[in-house]
């Protein structure tokens, strides 16, 4: 009985996780410039990773695998913003200024 409950919860989490990964991918394609694309991709990075890994954890149950998955999630959530920051800084150093080549917005872009 409890197994079924965990299975259902796990599949709900995995479905919504897969959905966020898909939305992140669509957004990365639709957005106009690098920085807005990174915003879309971060849906995949944060919510997608959290939902998918939590869903897999429910499948694994109370085992060492779950602890390893939790560690993977923790390290992923610590490192992915660091990587994003490195990418954004590199883009700015390369002269890719935010807000200038964003086309379809109401911002203060020239």
């Amino acid at each position, binding site marked *: 009985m409890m197994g079924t409950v965990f299975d259902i919860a796990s599949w709900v989490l995995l479905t919504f996780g897969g959905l966020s990964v898909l939305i992140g991918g669509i957004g990365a394609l639709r957005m106009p410039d690098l920085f807005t694309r990174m*915003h*879309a991709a*971060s*849906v995949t990075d944060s919510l997608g990773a959290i939902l998918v890994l939590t869903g897999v954890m429910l499948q694994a149950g109370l085992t060492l695998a779950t602890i390893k998955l939790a560690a993977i999630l923790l390290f992923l959530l610590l490192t992915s913003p660091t990587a994003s*920051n490195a990418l954004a800084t590199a883009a700015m150093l390369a002269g890719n200024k935010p807000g200038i080549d964003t086309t*379809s917005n109401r911002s*203060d872009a020239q």
Partner: protein
Amino acid sequence: MNPARDNQTAPGSAGRLRAYLMFTVLLIAAWVLWSGMFKPLLLALGAVSCALVVYIAVRMGYFDSRVFALRFNLRLLGFWAWLLKEIVKSSLEVARIVLARKLELSTRVVEIDVSQLSPVDQVILGNSITLTPGTLTLDADDGKLLVHALTAEGAAALEEGEMLRRVAAIHKD
């Protein structure tokens, strides 16, 4: 680029050696725990990995300042719970923008003054901003965070400063 190298508040050589050793022991314990296998090849790979990580850590000036500066406490867990809620909320917002027929963007770049926070808390805040979809930390320099926001509302929420207050509350003694 490397603030740690500028202020050489280095601990004494004995303390430094202890930090090296603790760090190495921690890495080896992590490797053995995660791998759980004791074949010579895997142990050798583990030893090489640990040595490489220690070398990189020394090179980037990790031991020049206080090691293990991130302390865990219950308030950090509370912050994570709040951050999770924010991630879900802003993910839904970004998903709505992405799936809308017409992209409704109003990108902003805002500067947030974080000079009141310790360096570790500045990193926590910068990473938390990046982790929530719709806001992205571009640069951290001189007690200021440069943040790119997908919408004007996101930028306004950030300037209002709830996240800053919550980060400041984690390590307040």
